[in-house]
């Protein structure tokens, strides 16, 4: 309603001026819609989508890309057809819209600008606010007893923490083989030969990301750069970490690797 409630001007000149401004805004909106469609398509094709959301819901991004192209394409078509005419954005029923403004257009362009200018990277060691050595602390359902049925060498960091949650006696895990990947995370109070192999878990998107990690004992820890992705092989041994009884990975090998295509674990 507001969108159409343009003040009636006496001067034809003002009217022309308003009209041109309106068309510029409509073109800007069209460009943003198509740009957002391209941005979604790019994320899908490049695989960057996995830096942001749980791929279980990846199909929603296809929907979004299609709808952005539909709205943008329609908007462009309408503008091209009405060239030269005074095709006013006419009253749409009783819908309440605030008058379009450049500020509003700029705000909606923000994700496009940030998405294009800032290189896409998954959350890493820098984003760890607090790290959980406990799967329960990360909104993870721990109810499944099935964790024990996964072969130890096939367990990822999250599976291991679930096993920890179901274990009363860490001694029962002694000598089980460990084969995990994650990024290196260290804090000053860790032992000189200790680091954590950390992962982020996400349920829906990175907004609900939680850092989890397994403590690792490795003599050459000092040589590992914070945040670097590593492949850790070793055995589980009962012990203490930061003063708490737990089990630690005693590593036989720690190998620096490329970040995996899918950086997060989905609980």
């Amino acid at each position, binding site marked *: 309603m507001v969108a159409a409630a343009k003040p009636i001007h006496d001067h034809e000149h003002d009217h022309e001026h308003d009209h041109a401004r309106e068309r510029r805004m409509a073109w800007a909106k069209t460009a943003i819609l198509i740009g957002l469609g391209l941005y979604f398509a790019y994320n899908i094709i490049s695989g960057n989508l996995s830096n942001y959301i749980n791929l279980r819901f990846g199909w*929603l991004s296809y929907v979004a890309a299609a709808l952005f192209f539909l709205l943008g394409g329609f908007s462009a078509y309408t503008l091209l057809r009405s060239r030269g005419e005074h095709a006013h954005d006419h009253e*749409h029923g009783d819908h309440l819209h605030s008058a379009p403004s450049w500020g509003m257009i700029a705000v909606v362009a923000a994700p496009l600008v940030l998405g294009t200018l800032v290189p896409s990277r998954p959350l890493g060691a820098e984003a760890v606010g607090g790290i959980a050595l406990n799967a329960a602390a990360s909104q993870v359902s721990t109810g499944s007893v099935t964790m024990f049925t996964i072969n130890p060498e096939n367990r990822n960091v999250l599976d291991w923490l679930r096993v920890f949650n179901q274990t009363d006696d860490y001694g029962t895990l002694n000598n089980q083989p460990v084969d995990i990947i994650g990024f290196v995370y260290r804090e000053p109070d860790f032992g000189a030969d200790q680091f954590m192999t950390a992962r982020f878990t996400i*349920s*829906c998107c990175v*907004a609900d990301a939680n850092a989890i990690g397994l403590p690792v004992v490795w003599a050459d820890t000092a040589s590992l750069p914070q945040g670097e992705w590593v492949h850790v092989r070793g055995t589980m041994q009962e012990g203490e970490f930061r003063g708490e009884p737990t089990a630690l990975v005693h590593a036989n090998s720690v190998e620096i690797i490329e970040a995996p295509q899918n950086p997060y674990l989905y609980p």
Partner: protein
Amino acid sequence: MTAETPSVFRRFALLALILLLAAAAILAVLTSSRDPAALLNIFTTRFLGIFLEAAPFLLLGALASGLIDAFIRPDDIARLTPRNPALATVAGAFMGFIFPVCECGVVPVVRRLYTKGLPISVGVTFLLAAPVINPVVLVSTYVAYGFGPVLIGRFVITIIVAVIIGLIFAIAARPRDVLRPATLEMLPQLLVAGGSPEATEADIIPVYEHAPRKPLGAGLRDALGTATNDFFDMGRYLIIGSMLAAAMQTFVPQEALTALGSGPVTSVLVMQVLAFLLSVCSTVDAFLSLAFVNTFTPGSIMAFLTFGPMVDIKSMLMFAGVFKPRVVAYLIILPFLLTLLIGIWINLNVSL
């Protein structure tokens, strides 16, 4: 409807939020020992995460709202309303499933329904419930939280609160006490005098509801146009809201957030105020709330997900165009108190 006041207020509120955001970010970067470039990267990742997950739902919501606007006439809704006032009030809570509208779309629909003779109480319940009780929000909440206590709680609490408030209006309110004179003038006279809606059904002076249905092509064109406008209109609230949420997660130390978010009462109040100020559309607010699940109490998350869709800056300004100021106050205070109480009760009694 005053076109000027809302946009001035909104612009002011938006500007204040942006300034707050920028100030907080600058302060955080200056005082933090972490690398500013890395912080910007984390902030961007979190912000785009919410946006990428939410955008499809914002689009679907906008499209649904455009289609309703083009093809559904208030007659259709009025015809489906049961005659019994109590039953109608309960039915009002579920009408959103047939007419999915978020809080931006619901007020004009309700106003038009009143001119068709819809009982005040039914309109109030529909007004409060529809932004949550609809298929788009059902799916987005499911995507964000899965099937579980949050999804069920959000729907059940919304229905309870909306029906309670609707029933209060059913007992206590007459149209002339509730509606603004401008809206009242559009009502059939018998109804204003307290006659039953049935008696007036035939007497209603057609305003524009009896306009012929739009042909498919023209209707679709209008729907797409409306959807585009809606997307930009609602998109900015989503974008500013998710920037704020991402900024809080990135720049505010986790301990500080936990301190703010762990009190059983204060956490609920904080999330209610946040929901009110951010005015994020109900189709996507579930994704925004994810940013707080690690640091805030379950009751406060629930209050955010139930109070926000009923009342925020945006809807408050729209209420003011239809209802008398005293009623607008009730429509803010009653949902506020009820969701506050329920949120506190959840924090004290339920472990999710």
